Every structure is written in structure tokens, then in C-alpha cells.
């Protein structure tokens, strides 16, 4: 939103109902669907998990884009026998090559791959020594208990000498500080879009271990010369334990030399994910596609609306672009 406004676009967040105010997001211009009077200049950008909203808006004036950030929400929320084409969706924005291929393959809609960024002010390699700590996000810790039990049976030091830190409900600053302190970041979610939390951990010098969660394909590499993390196939925490054990042995014995190339390659991956890169890609996209129609987007006419609402399962889904260049992610 901030990028678009700074570039002269008229963009607003569109809530489903009046009065909804998320507590932890930046102030942005807002509109609500219940008072909306769309015209043909408007473009609605609807998150992938909201087919109900797509259906509601499908015959309105204006154009409809989808922003797809989670591959799993795409078909898990669609009614049988329908897809976005029936909702008059014109094109799709995404930041994930996996999602782009999925949409293009299945619905044959035009998909535009945008860039993403991470907050390098928060996620950087600290000068001080890392703690004997494995961090993981509570809501993404699908197999952590089983993995911990398995590793603990192999060697009790793995769970008693190393701190396993579950992160949930903490501020973004505190979260980032713990990631910077951690030696390992564990990600055992099996369904992620762009693996932002893994990329943040990589930027912070933590070794990422877990599953690629499908969305991490092409970004997270668990083998080969480009290895930048420890991966096992989705759901296979047994193989993950085998892969983690040598790392944990070295952590406990403070002999991390052989892991430094992997840490370095991971940092290189994240170095490319800058604010400028994200802003340029986003602006280029909108310059090309917002002006494609007869009526160009102007400052006088609210033109680009980002739908924002609660999904059916209660999880918050947002397509808010970053205010200060850092991704806004709800944990």
C-alpha cells in the first residue's frame, strides 16, 4: 500500500464490514464493502482464500485481480466445480513460482510474479555468538513434538542441552531478536507459500531445517552445491532427525566450522530480497496493468482496493504490501 501510494497510485484497503480495525497493522486508507460504490475504473485485488468475496464482486463494475500468497488456500477454499474464471478474475499476482505454476496450469489465468523483500534492519547476522537454541513458530510446529521426542531418545542432550524455543504471540522486534539469537530455525509446516520466515532466519544466520512446504521449492535447497538449509520431504520428521543430529552434535560441541558455507549461501539468497526490488516490481506491474484499460488509475478516483477480511477458518489473510519495505506478516 505504501509503495503504491508513494508512487502516485490511489490504493486503499477494502474491509468487508465497517468498523473492522486490525490492531497491529499500519494506518492506511480504507474503504468498506458495505458502503462501496464501484465504478469501471476500480480494480479489486482479492486474496486467494476468499472465493466468497470473489463471487460477491464478480458482476460489479471494474476489474478483479487475485493475489495468491498461499498455494493451499487456492483449492481448499473453492466450492466444487468452480474456479476463479467463473468469478471474472482477470489476472493473478503472486510472489511464489510454485503458486504461479499452479494457477497457470489449473485455471490458465495470466499470473504475474512479483518480488518480495525481508526486513534487513531486523534480520541480520549478529556479531555476538549464537545461543544453543532452536527456534520455531508455534503455529507452524506441526511435527516438532514428535521430532523432539525422537531426537531426545537418540540423545537426551539434544533436548536438554539445547533450548527449544516456541515463538508465538510476541512482538515483531522480540521475534526477530530471538531468531537472531538462534542457531537453528525449525520449519515443519507442510503448506507455506513464500517461505518468508525461513528467509528471515537465513538472513539472521540461523540454519534453517525442516520441510520445503511446497512453496519453498526453488528457494530452499537441502542438497547439492547450492545447499542452503537442511531439508527432508514434507512430513518426514524421521529423515529430518537423521539430518539434524550431526548439526546438533556440532552445536553442543561448539564446532560449527563445517556449517559456515551453508550459512553463507543462505545469507546470499536473502541479500537479494530488498525493499527496492519489491517496490520496483510492484510499481512496474501496476503501471503496466492498471493503465491497460480505457480509464487509467488516477489520484482522484479510488482505483485499487485490497480486500481484507477474516477467512472462514478464522485465520487472518492479508494482501497488504509493506509500509516501510518490510513484509507485514501476522504471526
Amino acid at each position: 500500500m505504501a509503495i503504491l501510494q508513494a508512487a502516485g497510485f490511489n490504493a486503499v484497503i477494502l474491509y468487508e464490514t465497517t468498523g473492522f480495525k486490525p490492531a497491529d497493522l499500519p494506518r492506511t486508507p480504507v474503504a468498506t464493502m458495505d458502503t462501496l460504490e464501484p465504478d469501471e475504473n476500480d480494480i479489486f485485488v482479492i486474496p486467494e482464500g476468499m472465493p466468497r468475496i470473489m463471487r460477491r464482486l464478480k458482476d460489479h463494475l471494474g476489474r478483479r485481480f487475485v493475489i495468491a500468497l498461499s498455494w493451499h488456500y487456492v483449492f481448499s477454499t473453492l466450492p466444487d466445480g468452480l474456479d476463479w474464471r467463473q468469478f471474472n478474475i482477470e489476472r493473478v499476482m503472486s510472489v511464489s513460482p510454485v503458486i504461479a505454476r499452479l494457477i497457470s496450469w489449473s485455471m490458465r489465468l495470466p499470473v504475474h510474479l512479483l518480488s518480495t523483500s525481508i526486513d534487513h534492519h531486523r534480520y541480520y547476522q549478529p556479531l555476538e555468538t549464537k545461543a544453543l537454541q532452536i527456534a520455531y513458530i508455534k503455529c507452524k510446529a506441526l511435527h516438532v513434538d514428535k521430532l523432539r521426542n525422537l531426537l531426545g531418545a537418540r540423545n537426551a542432550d539434544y533436548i536438554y542441552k539445547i533450548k527449544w524455543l516456541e515463538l508465538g504471540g510476541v512482538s515483531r522486534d522480540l521475534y526477530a531478536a530471538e531468531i537472531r539469537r538462534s542457531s537453528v530455525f525449525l520449519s515443519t509446516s507442510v503448506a507455506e507459500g513464500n517461505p518468508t520466515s525461513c528467509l528471515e532466519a537465513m538472513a539472521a544466520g540461523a540454519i534453517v531445517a525442516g520441510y520445503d512446504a511446497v512453496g519453498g521449492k526453488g528457494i530452499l535447497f537441502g542438497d547439492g552445491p547450492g545447499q542452503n538449509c537442511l531439508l527432508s520431504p514434507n512430513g518426514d520428521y524421521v529423515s529430518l532427525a537423521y539430518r539434524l543430529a550431526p548439526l546438533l552434535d556440532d552445536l553442543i560441541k561448539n564446532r560449527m566450522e563445517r556449517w559456515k558455507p551453508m550459512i553463507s549461501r543462505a545469507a546470499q539468497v536473502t541479500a537479494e530480497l530488498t525493499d527496492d526490488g519489491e517496490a520496483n516490481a510492484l510499481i512496474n506491474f501496476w503501471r503496466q496493468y492498471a493503465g491497460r484499460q480505457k480509464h487509467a488509475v488516477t489520484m482522484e478516483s479510488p482505483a485499487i482496493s485490497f480486500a481484507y477480511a477474516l477467512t472462514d477458518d478464522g485465520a487472518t489473510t492479508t494482501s497488504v504490501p509493506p509500509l516501510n519495505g518490510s513484509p507485514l506478516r501476522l504471526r
Partner: protein
Amino acid sequence: MKINKTAQLHSAQSYATLPQPVNDEIFYLCPDTEIPSAGIRRLYRHVDLLSRAGFEARILHLRSGFLRKDLPEVPVAYLDRLSCRSNTIIVIPEGFPAIMDALKQNPGRRFAIALNWDYVYKSMPEGMNWRAFNIERVLTVSQGIARMISWSMGLPTHVLGSSIDHRLYYPDEAARQPHIVFIARKAIHADILKRLLAARNPDFVQRIKWVGLRELTEPAYAAQVRQASIFLNLSAAEGFPTSCLEAMASGTLVAGYRSACDRELLRHQGPDQNCILTPIGDYVSLAFALEPVLQSIISGNLNHHRQMLSNALNTAREFTLEYETRTLVAFWKDIRANRFAEQTMQSTRE
């Protein structure tokens, strides 16, 4: 449950030096559930085969009176009436650490049987493992599970043979239909996969019938599997892949999620490929991989997939009742003859 508190306690190690009874009493603990389960069928089958081979073996249900009438008639005992003796061996399934704990100081010996890799640490209290419950050794039917147990707990493991019923599962090309079947209770993503494939090509759901299998007798289930063109295995944590082997034996193409410990049987690439697998939960890649098969089914020409189906038939062919019986009886004869005494005394951890 009666527990003889005055009886002498024996650690796993101490048995190697004890005089062995002539006839062990073997009890396979079995949960009191009516759910159709390949694991429970296997427990009953072990007892059946052992009884026929002259062993004193029984199924051990938890509460008096419970019995699976749909499974072979075998000797049954009940845990709530059991009195353990020094020649008692209780075989406890992997998902019951609480019962292992309750029995850990009883007279007799305790083995675990691990048929599902995911249950082992799912149900384990933190900081515990089977060594703490005086489990002496572990029976399994999978090299992958054996490796996991051995790696993590350092217990001796024994990989036994397995079988499928080739009288029920055999190729019947005359009956083949453009059907995709899946076990409904295990198919976590069947609906989503179907929607995704329908978006790609509506024929994939309109000209191919998707059948969720539920509450069928085994003969009725087997008939559905034999008829189908594809058996979809979408379980998030499959133990030994019995249902996949049954489908393979039926000439039905197996597709689905790759589980953690079935690598030696289910091969998804190379010249020995016998099925189509993607990582657990990755129904996107599965849809991509299924598309050419679905097109072949619609066109009625599966020639492109004959090699895979042939490899699958060869894989399943080895799993005969004779093979299972031979390995099972050999194991228990070795136990009876105390041939593992030395192994009991030492860790086999890698």
C-alpha cells in the same frame, strides 16, 4: 489388571542369563476397536499363524468380552484378567506407551511391535522411550521403521515378512473401470486434489469416477480395488503400506504421498518405479504427475504406464503368506531357543 507385585522383577538384560521356560506364552496386545485396520489384521494373523505352528499365542484385548468377529478365530485373552508369569511374553503395539509403562515391572518379557512409524513418538511422553519401559526388543515389518527404532532407542529390531491376500488382490483386466479409489478415512486431500484437477480438465472428474471406500467388508473392498485404474493413497502418515501393495497386486496404479519409512517398497523414480509419489501434503505435484495417467485412462490406453504396473506386480508378488509365516515362525523359534541372548545384552544402535 492383576499385577503380581511379589514376583521377581527382571530387567531386559537379566533374561539372557535366566533358564528359559520350555513354552513361552505369547500375548499380542490388540486395541479394542472395530475400525478396519491392516495393523489389527496383522496382529490376529500373527497369532493365527503361530497357533498353527504350535506356539501358545493369544490376542490380548483390553477389556473382557471384546472380540473382532470379522477376523480369524484365534485364542483370545484379556488384559484385565491377565496374570503374568516368567514365561509370559507380551507384544505391545507401538502406540501404547501407557500400557508399556503399566506392564514394565510385571513378570515376563515385553516386546514392542512397530507397524506405524508415526505412532512411535506421537504417543511417547517427553524424555521417555521404550527402554524405560523394559521393552526387550522390537518386531517390525519395515526396514525403515527398524532403522528409526534402532537409531533412536538402540533396541534390537527384527524385520519380519509381510503378506497380502493374493486370493483377493489379483489383476482382473476385464473388470477394470475408469475409477480412482481411495480409503475415505485416510484421504486428507482427495477433495482438494479433485477440484484442482477439475480446474485443469473437467474430464478428469466427469469421465473418471472418484470413489471413497468406507465401511466395506474386505471382499467388497478388494473388488473395488481390482476394478479401479488408480489407487490413491493420501494418508499423511502411513505405516506399512499394505493397502498400496494390495492395489499393486491388483494391477491398479498406486499414486499418492510418500511416507517416511516405506522407501524400500514404494519406488517413485528410476527403472524400478512402481508408483507415483509426492511428498506428504504436496497435492500440487501429485496433480501434475497424475495428469498424463488420467489422460491415458480417458483414452483407454495405459501402455505408457505398463512398465510401472509390471514393476508393481513384481513388488507385490513377494508378499505371500508362506513368506510371512516362514519369517514369523523362525523369529519365535529363535526366541524360544534363546538365540538372541547376546543381542539382548548389547545395544544395536547405529
